[in-house]
């Protein structure tokens, strides 16, 4: 049995258990140490993924290929950024407890298992490990009513989605007799012969996963959870789990059910269009910036799904490039949002940003870079994400999707530039508290990535290309 291919997950899980023991035993400053150890664990896992072998193991239930490596690296990056951002926020918010980094770590292990799953059972296992950790994180500010509400809402709706997913898996298993991705792909080579039961099963699986990436019409939980959860948790929600769920969706739809593309393509197209349009229009009326980011992430998932809808390696490549850029700009945006704090209290209204360009030009410039990037204005990285996705869509002949996509991106641009308007054109409100160095570090690092991506797009695009072709073997 080739267990070494799961080394990153195993090592990370062991580190997680060790941190748990360490956190219980140590009384003082446990949180800082635990967070640092967690980030260290992420770094070790990062190196292991980079150097680790490829292949499949555990009787074909677990696979490590370029696709899983690409996504694991991205997940670990997102999780590390979120961990750094949580330090300052949790401390000032009075919710610093050592369980926080540990939960994050276990959620990350779950995500890594998800992207490596090559069996529907492994998939479910990884997904539940991730979800259960996230439910707790959402309610982490346990004295805060909104946070508890967010946790409960996420738990109930997430449970429902998991149920649907499980039901879909059981249908697929019942009608095909296997849960293994490779065997499923072989069985379904001729889509004509696929039994309707399998198709229904696929639809249920799709619904379950659409819930996890918060695509319309399974998005209802997103704004409430984003707003209610502590911001440090929201930034985590918006980055790593989105990558994991999207990777899972890509693998499941392309690899075992790849031959059924005719059956699921129209569904993905509809979900994608609905997400882009709803994300764009619903965000206009928001006054809370976290809620706005929730709708923005719904729209972003819509763009990413547009790449999936094409059902080709080029489409998957587009999605991977998109997700990479998305993680960086989202982490950066949330770093700026966490920096919004007046007299020790976190503020999250868009109007609180008024005149930021006068009070804190650096922060305003960074947030402006992220907003222009999200709006897809060139030279910023966000443009390239959209470029590759729409390139694939046009290549696949999905013109409706492409036209609706670019037009809704104009609507989206309206609310992104409204934030810039508030920062630059409105008279200054009171200044924010001093930024913590950790926030500045994350914002500047991701800001530089967003701003300078255009100089060297090749490495990311090439890696995404290799990864995309790995699941179409």
């Amino acid at each position: 049995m080739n267990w070494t291919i799961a080394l990153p997950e195993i090592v990370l899980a062991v580190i997680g258990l060790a941190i748990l023991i360490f956190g219980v035993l140590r009384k003082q400053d446990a949180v800082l140490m635990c967070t640092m150890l967690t980030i260290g664990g992420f770094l070790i896992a990062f190196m292991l993924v980079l150097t680790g072998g490829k292949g499949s193991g555990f009787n074909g239930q677990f696979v490590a290929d370029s696709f899983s490596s690409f996504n694991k690296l991205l997940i670990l990056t997102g999780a590390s950024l979120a961990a750094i951002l949580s330090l300052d926020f949790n401390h000032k918010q009075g919710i610093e407890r050592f369980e926080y980094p540990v939960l994050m770590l276990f959620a990350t292990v779950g995500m890594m298992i998800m992207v490596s799953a090559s069996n529907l059972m492994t998939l479910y296992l990884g997904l539940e490990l991730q979800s259960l950790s996230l439910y707790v994180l959402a309610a982490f500010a346990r004295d805060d009513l909104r946070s508890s509400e967010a946790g409960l809402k996420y738990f109930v709706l997430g449970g429902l989605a998991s149920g649907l997913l499980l039901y879909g898996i059981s249908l697929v298993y019942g009608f095909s007799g296997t849960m293994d991705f490779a065997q499923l792909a072989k069985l379904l080579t001729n889509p004509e012969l696929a039994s309707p039961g399998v198709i229904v099963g696929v639809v249920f699986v799709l619904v379950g996963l659409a819930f996890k990436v918060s695509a319309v019409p399974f998005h209802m939980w997103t704004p409430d959870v984003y707003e209610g959860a502590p911001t440090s948790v929201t930034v985590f929600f918006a980055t790593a789990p989105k990558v994991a769920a999207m990777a899972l969706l890509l693998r499941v739809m392309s690899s075992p059910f790849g031959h059924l593309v005719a059956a699921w393509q129209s569904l993905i197209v509809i979900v994608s269009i609905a997400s882009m349009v709803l994300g764009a229009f619903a965000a206009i009326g928001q006054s809370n910036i976290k809620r706005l980011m929730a709708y923005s992430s719904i729209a972003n998932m819509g763009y990413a799904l547009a790449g999936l809808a094409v059902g080709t390696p080029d489409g998957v490549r587009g999605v991977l490039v998109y997700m990479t850029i998305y993680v960086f700009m989202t982490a950066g945006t949330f770093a700026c949002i966490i920096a919004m704090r007046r007299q020790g209290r976190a503020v999250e209204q868009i109007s609180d940003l008024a005149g930021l360009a006068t009070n804190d030009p650096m922060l305003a410039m960074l947030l402006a870079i992220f907003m222009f990037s999200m709006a897809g204005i060139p030279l910023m990285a966000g443009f390239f994400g959209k470029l590759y996705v729409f390139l694939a869509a046009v290549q696949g002949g999905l013109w409706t999707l492409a036209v609706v996509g670019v037009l809704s991106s104009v609507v989206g641009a309206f609310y992104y530039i409204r934030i810039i308007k508030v920062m630059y054109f409105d008279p200054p409100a009171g200044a924010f508290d001093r930024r913590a160095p950790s926030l500045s570090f994350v914002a500047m690092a991701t800001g530089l990535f967003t701003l300078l991506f255009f100089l060297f797009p090749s490495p990311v695009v090439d890696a995404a290309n290799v990864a995309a072709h790995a699941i179409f073997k």
Partner: protein
Amino acid sequence: MGFPLLSLITWLPMVGVAVILSIRGDEKTVASNARWTALWTSLIVLVISLVIWVKFDRSEAGFQFVENVAWLPEYKVGYKMGIDGISVLFVLLSTVLTPICILASWESIQTKVREFMAAFLILETMMVGMFCALDFVVFYMFFEAVLIPMYLIIGVWGGPRRVYAAVKFFLFTLTGSVLMLLALLAMWLMAGTTDIPTLMHTHFPLGMQKWLFLAFFASFAVKVPMWPVHTWLPDAHVEAPTAGSVILAGVLLKMGAYGFIRFSIPMLPDASAYFAPFIFTLSVVAVIYTSLVALAQEDMKKLIAYSSVAHMGVVTIGLFTFNEQGIQGGLFMMLSHGVVSAALFLIVGVVYDRIHSREIARYGGLADRMPGYAFAFMLFAMASVGLPGTAGFVGEFLVILGALQVNFWLALLGGAGMILGAAYTLYLYRRVIFGRLTRDDLRAILDLSPREWAVFAPLIVLTMWMGIYPSSFTGFWDASVAAMVKQHTAALLETTKLAGVLH
């Protein structure tokens, strides 16, 4: 590949930006240092671009100073720069107007000077890069990135309704651009490359050409701007600071027309011919309707903004005649409008800086107190009208000649713009400059300062030069335009032949 001169003038302003952003000190030092850094940077860029002007080989129809660096090799997208006779003068227009704008905002911009100068230099990079780009993706990036500095310039340093104007400007232009993005992607997939010279020689099927043309049209028509999508322009002009208006009228409006002549006409010859009557209709409406609107304006900047729409209507008529006179006339008009309308916005800026009003009725009798100003205003007004001997005449005359070869009525209606233009410009001039001095603050008004003379002098020289000896400008694009017209005719002939075979 020789020394990358084009990349140098494109990216040099960014070095200036870096310097400006790193200036430390109290507000006054920062402002003064930022002004000087921006001015020197733009002057150095101007000098380098003059070197290009001198070294440019006028007999060559193709692209010169070509640079090519692999950027996304597996998608056949390269960072490719180069200029031909059509683009070289627009590069120069951008590099000439930028230092003028910086000089013009020397005193009128007092808040956030550092950011203003940085935004202007970023804008220069984007404009020059756009005119030099020989790769469609690179072109698109510069074309669209212009929005960022311009949005901020209007929004931060603009007038009372600046937010509305900035957002409107941004969304109008973006809507057009994203549709062009789709056309770009379709061409990319069809031709397998985004190299502009290759795309110019790629034949696209007629059905596809029509869709591509409409997508391009959505983008360029907004930028030109053509009637009925011109409504963002008066708002943007009125609210923008003087320098913003100057660059908007001088260079940004040319981007749309440049797009037509660089992309629509050579790449989509059949669709261009098919849609030419449609373009003519919109252009004639623009010429007549917006001229009449201009006649009724109470605001000086708004009046000039509407006159810009009318003048750009003449440009689009010229470009879509597909003959040498018409296209040359269109190009000349773009250039002269770039100089003259920019100068007119500066003229408005001069009195706005002193009285803080753009209302025409607020002025009158300025000739008494400001003879120098009245002279400069007169010169540019005449050039705008198209008086022979000034820059405006050559372009309009050539366009009318070209239009006559297409259709008599087109030439007549297009030419009507000149008459209406004379009406609203002279009416404006009479109300502002002549009449009696009635207000006290006007009695004390000062004539042009040496700095302002320095701003106007190059523009006066250019206006006269273009009018008196136009061939030193048309000489640049003679070869390129002749090659383009030839290729266009050949392409149309080919299509007709093909149709003949099929029937």
